């Protein structure tokens, strides 16, 4: 019997992990960054839909940890290790971090996309997790889907069709 895969959907500011043959998807990334950490030997992958660069921006305790780059990556690693992944084998792919609107007033909020990308990369670098592929920046939204079996990250954009990284 061939086991059919399911698609696990990750909401905004959320995270989750899947094992092959399941796929993992998040929709409508704008300034947010979708990060995938995976162990290709164990065919395990985790995805987070990150909204903000760092948890120190939180003005309140007890908020979802998966919406900040630093705590999302920390929790993804822990969840993957808990499921049997080896941290030295973990690799990353990322997409998102667009600047959706051009503004003359250059408030920090308007640059949130590039700041999210910088934060994700900084955190991965300090954890020595290599980034195998990325599709970041630009000015349009993305829906992404990762297959832990093939380690392909499918990216769909409005008016620009699909690509695989």
């Amino acid at each position: 019997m061939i086991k059919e895969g399911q698609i696990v959907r990750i909401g905004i500011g959320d995270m989750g992990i899947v094992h092959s043959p399941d796929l993992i998807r998040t929709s409508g990334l704008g300034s947010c960054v979708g990060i995938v950490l995976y162990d290709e030997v164990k065919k395990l992958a985790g995805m987070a839909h990150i909204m903000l660069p760092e948890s120190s921006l939180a003005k309140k305790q007890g908020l979802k940890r998966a919406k900040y780059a630093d705590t999302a990556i920390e929790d993804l690693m822990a969840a993957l290790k808990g499921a049997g992944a080896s941290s030295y084998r973990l690799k990353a792919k990322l997409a998102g971090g667009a600047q959706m609107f051009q503004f003359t007033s250059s408030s920090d909020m308007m640059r949130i996309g590039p700041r999210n990308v910088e934060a994700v990369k900084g955190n991965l670098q300090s954890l020595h997790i290599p980034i195998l592929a990325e599709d970041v920046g630009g000015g349009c939204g993305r829906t992404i889907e990762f297959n832990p079996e093939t380690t392909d990250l499918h990216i769909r954009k409005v008016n620009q069709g699909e690509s695989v990284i």
Partner: protein
Amino acid sequence: MSFMSNSKNFTERFGPIQLDVLKEIGNIGSGHAATSLSKLLHKKIEMHVPGVEVVDFDQVMDLAGGADKEVVSIFQRMEGEAPGTMFFIMAPFQARHFVELMTNASVGFDGGSEMALSALQELGNILSGAYLTALCDFTELDIQSTVPSISQDMVGAILSMGLIELSQVSDAAIVIKTSLTDGEGGEGEFLEGHFFLFPDPSSYQKIFSSLGVREDD
């Protein structure tokens, strides 16, 4: 009592009275917007009873058709005493329809011709101007809007910009949503758009206290 130091969760602090006040703001604002739009388009535009809901971020996207759905949006920041973010969201064919009615031409919205973009910016200015005038009259706060920014993309990518400020204090959002439609409603001919208002977290206290509503009422 400082706003941020309150021990309750951000959205738990809004009871029926506070939500009613926000609904009234939606009501007055979109009433003005519908009147201005009727004048502009020489068409009867109806405003639907606004909804004010406390929902999590994914449900915000669902209210606009789902994170994946392609829409045309007019985005403006509100600046001044009670900052926030406003969106007017339409299906692409509706945006085309608005543009055609405004310009009396079939210019379309394909990749955004100059004409279509400026028509949509004008639409944004009229709607937000009407909305803000009502809000300022009602609260006596000084609020202005930025130049409208037009984008055609996925709902999630667009609306998440309105959640960035909020996401620093909350995992849920208060959505003030009103819909405008024309009263005629022929097949494929109707006009429809959804107005979303997201005050920044710090603005709620100012709005409530300007109206004499205490936060813990």
